[in-house]
């Protein structure tokens, strides 16, 4: 063994400082649920205390660290650590509220991670028994995490001296960020603006439904909660039975907004700003996204109708809702699909690996990667016969860089590897500590957590809970959500020695 450099090549102090700054600003988000608590005459102290702790921790980290700017390498560390810190902060209100269902740190941390990563799987058994303010905090964590905490910071904070692009790319879902304008900050601002606008529109539509009487179940609280959960493709609802009790019209509107949330926000932004509603349909990914959505919805509807589970409009609605909810990694449900026939269940599990578009708030592998992998495979087949042919892979007419293509392949392999590992740990743990799970339940749990979908099968069905799992499984699933939200690679990179050394 030759001489080895002991010096770290990563400026941990600079990264610590930046994480502190981000946490400090994030702590302001506690004011919103505190205000809700005051409005409902509930106790605002858990939120104020959580905010105070986070702010103090942030300031302390800022002091400990150095204010030197960060570079490419530190970006990974900052993103990975910030999401861990954010989830820890998000767990504080649950712990401080004294709510019995989430009084253990592991459970509260799971719930917070599920919130920020827009997964939507819950550890709660009786959701409706929670305080209104705590319910709104769950929804709010979805909404903050959907577009990205760091993207928000880049958009709002005037002087965040960071290598913006690298951070944005690590945090934004999808293989590459297509800048809307040249400056990263401008792009982040525009994306957040669109996100806020769409959320407002959805909340307004649902509130109107409630007022007009289309959906009597829908008050302003439910309307805002639904909007906070749909656009980040989250999955939490302040309801025990998700969307089951809402009117058919509301369910259809939710379908529409889920489709929008799973589409590339940059494409939507351009279509709106240039007033060209046809623009998205010229995008290769949008076309395939819509085709897969339609096909999956139709397939489920036909399965339900032919098996006699549902009929007519209900079959179409439930088929489309479930297919789109799972594929966009939202995780809402209008029915408990656990009782569905095997073919329908398998269809849903396959959809968990599909995901939405690049540049959307959805998780999982995403359409564009499937598309690029498919194109790369087709090229391999062509080159088997014609080894010398030069065949650049194109996407929307533009040639895709070979490195990016390799990145897609490695991502998919890593993703499947992590999924398998997660499933293995859950399988072993549940075999030892219970609860007893079927093979499909194990696969669904791992795929759902890693893809930030939310519900699984068995007890963890959309109307059920993850409360039955042991701490080992709960922590494993928390880690899967974390890995899935950051798209695996930043975390895996941190685990290599080459990251830390020169």
């Amino acid at each position: 063994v030759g001489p080895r450099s002991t010096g770290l090549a990563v400026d941990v102090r600079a990264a610590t400082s930046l994480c502190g700054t981000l946490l400090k600003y994030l702590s302001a988000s506690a004011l919103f649920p505190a205000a809700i608590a005051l409005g409902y005459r509930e106790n605002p102290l858990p939120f104020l205390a959580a905010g105070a702790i986070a702010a103090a921790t942030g300031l302390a980290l800022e002091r400990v660290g150095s204010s030197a700017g960060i570079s490419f390498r530190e970006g990974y560390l900052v993103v990975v650590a910030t999401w861990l810190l954010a989830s820890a902060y998000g767990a504080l209100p649950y712990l401080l509220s004294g709510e019995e269902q989430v009084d253990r740190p592991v459970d509260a941390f799971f719930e917070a991670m599920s919130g920020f990563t827009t997964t939507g799987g819950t550890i709660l058994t009786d959701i409706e028994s929670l305080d209104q303010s705590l319910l709104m905090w769950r929804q709010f964590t979805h909404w903050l995490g959907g577009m990205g905490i760091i993207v928000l910071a880049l958009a709002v904070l005037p002087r965040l001296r960071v290598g913006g692009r690298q951070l944005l790319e690590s945090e934004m879902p999808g293989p590459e960020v297509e800048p809307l304008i040249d400056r990263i900050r401008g792009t982040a601002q525009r994306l957040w603006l669109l996100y806020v606008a769409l959320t407002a529109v959805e909340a307004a539509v649902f509130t109107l439904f409630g007022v007009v009487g289309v959906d009597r179940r829908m008050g302003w609280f439910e309307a805002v909660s639904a909007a906070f959960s749909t656009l980040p493709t989250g999955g939490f609802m302040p309801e025990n039975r998700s969307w089951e009790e809402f009117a058919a019209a509301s369910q259809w509107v939710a379908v529409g907004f889920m489709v929008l949330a799973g589409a590339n926000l940059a494409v939507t932004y351009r279509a709106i700003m240039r007033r060209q509603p046809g623009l998205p349909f010229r995008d290769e990914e949008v076309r395939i996204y819509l085709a897969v959505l339609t096909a999956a919805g139709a397939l489920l509807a036909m399965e339900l109708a032919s098996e006699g589970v549902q009929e007519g409009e209900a079959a179409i609605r439930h088929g489309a809702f479930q297919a789109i909810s799972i594929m966009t990694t939202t995780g809402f449900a209008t029915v408990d699909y656990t009782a569905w026939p095997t073919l329908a269940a398998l269809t849903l599990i396959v959809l968990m690996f599909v995901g939405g578009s690049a540049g959307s708030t959805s998780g999982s592998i995403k359409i564009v990667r499937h598309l690029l992998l498919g194109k790369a495979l087709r090229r391999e087949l062509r080159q088997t016969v014609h080894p010398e042919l030069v065949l650049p892979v194109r996407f929307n007419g533009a040639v895709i860089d070979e490195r990016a293509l390799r990145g897609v392949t490695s991502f998919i392999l890593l993703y499947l590897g992590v999924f398998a590992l997660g499933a293995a740990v859950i399988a072993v743990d549940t075999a030892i500590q219970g609860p007893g799970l079927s093979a499909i339940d194990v696969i669904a749990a791992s795929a759902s957590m890693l893809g930030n979908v939310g519900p699984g099968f068995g007890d963890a069905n959309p109307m059920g809970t993850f409360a039955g799992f042991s701490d080992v499984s709960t922590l494993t699933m928390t880690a899967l959500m974390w890995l899935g939200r950051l798209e695996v690679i930043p975390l895996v990179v941190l685990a290599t020695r080459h990251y830390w050394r020169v």
Partner: protein
Amino acid sequence: MKVFLVGAGQVGTTIVEALHEEHELTVLDTDSTRLTSLSYAYDVRTVEADGASRRALAGAGVADTDLFLACTSRDEVNLVAASFARVEAPSATTVIRTANVEYIDLWREGRLDVDFVVSSERETAHAIARVIGVPAALETDVFADGQVQIVEFDVTEGASPDVVGPPLRNARIPADSRIASIISGESMILPRGDAVIRPGDRLVVIGSPESAQEWSKLLSPGGGTVDDVVVYGGGQVGAAIARQLLEQRIGVRVIEPSRERAWRLAEELPEVRVYQATGLDPDFVERERIGQAQAAVFAMREDALNHYAATLARVHGVPFTIAIVHDAIAREVYEHSGIDVTVNPRQVTAEEIVRFAHDPRTQQVAMLEGNRFEVLDITTKPTSEYVGLRFRDMPIRGALIGAIVRDGRAVFPRSDDVLQAGDRVIVFTETSRVPVVEKVL
């Protein structure tokens, strides 16, 4: 006319060769050996100086020139020289040679302050694409926006007896076409009714594009339409050829050994199949069925490589081979070893540039058989002695009117048609007679 020429390379020399008899030429170059050999061969004034220097241009007397030609192999020098010439001699027509597609586009948009732009690559691609469009042709050129085509054919043993053997008055010559000349060896005849086409002759035909296709079928039966062409070499010339062929809806495969260039081409032209290979490996040629291509173009940088690759392609069964010539001597080697058509980019470029030195009424010039014949596109003067005459009554002066362009439409004249003032005529003649023809028409 006073002509100023910057660059005495192969293009420059070909231009001098074509223009030195009628015009007053000044040639500028930095290489004294080139200038010396040029001044020994032709009666031209030579100046050893840098064309990109304004002082040098002024000193060489560019101010009173009528036509300024910048044809060095360096685009930037040509561009700079032409812009200085514009300042020194504002009334002169300026022409530059360039390989850069960007400059050509800029010129088309009117943003480049030169009068004409000529590109070797584009002219070469056009020449090759025209030949491929008419498979049996040796050389073709188009006039009047493509309505009139001049085609040169070799008559082979397999040619149809409809045209080969009987005297021309009895031969079934395709409609809308005229035989401009029958060349056998050194002798050339402007054919009359009793002339006979024999195997081994070379024909020059003027006619519509459809008739050119018919001639092609008559002279080489069995040659169908072309839809698969293999281009060896994916450099600038190869890319221009591929682009031109694609425009004519002909399928193209390109073979390019350099990874970088192969990728660039594949990225730029998605419809082209690009192989990253030398194309000289028999396994490759066999595996990719290169032999099944109807034509192959050899556009690599080295003549010897083109020669070897073309021979290999012929061995594998490619029926029609076209090769680029860089060194004039290679032409003979190519033709000797059975390559069907040779194209010299420098010659094609020179030809294009020479067009600007003609009478302003002359719109377009093509050269055939080296510089032996020219095809002119001239607008007739009202005072011409030919105006008002029927074609059969016209005096013979060693020239033949192949087509008339009247009100923008091409007409292929019969013997009792009458020439009118203002008609554009497509005339085939020997190079030495060009001044006479321009005078009388």
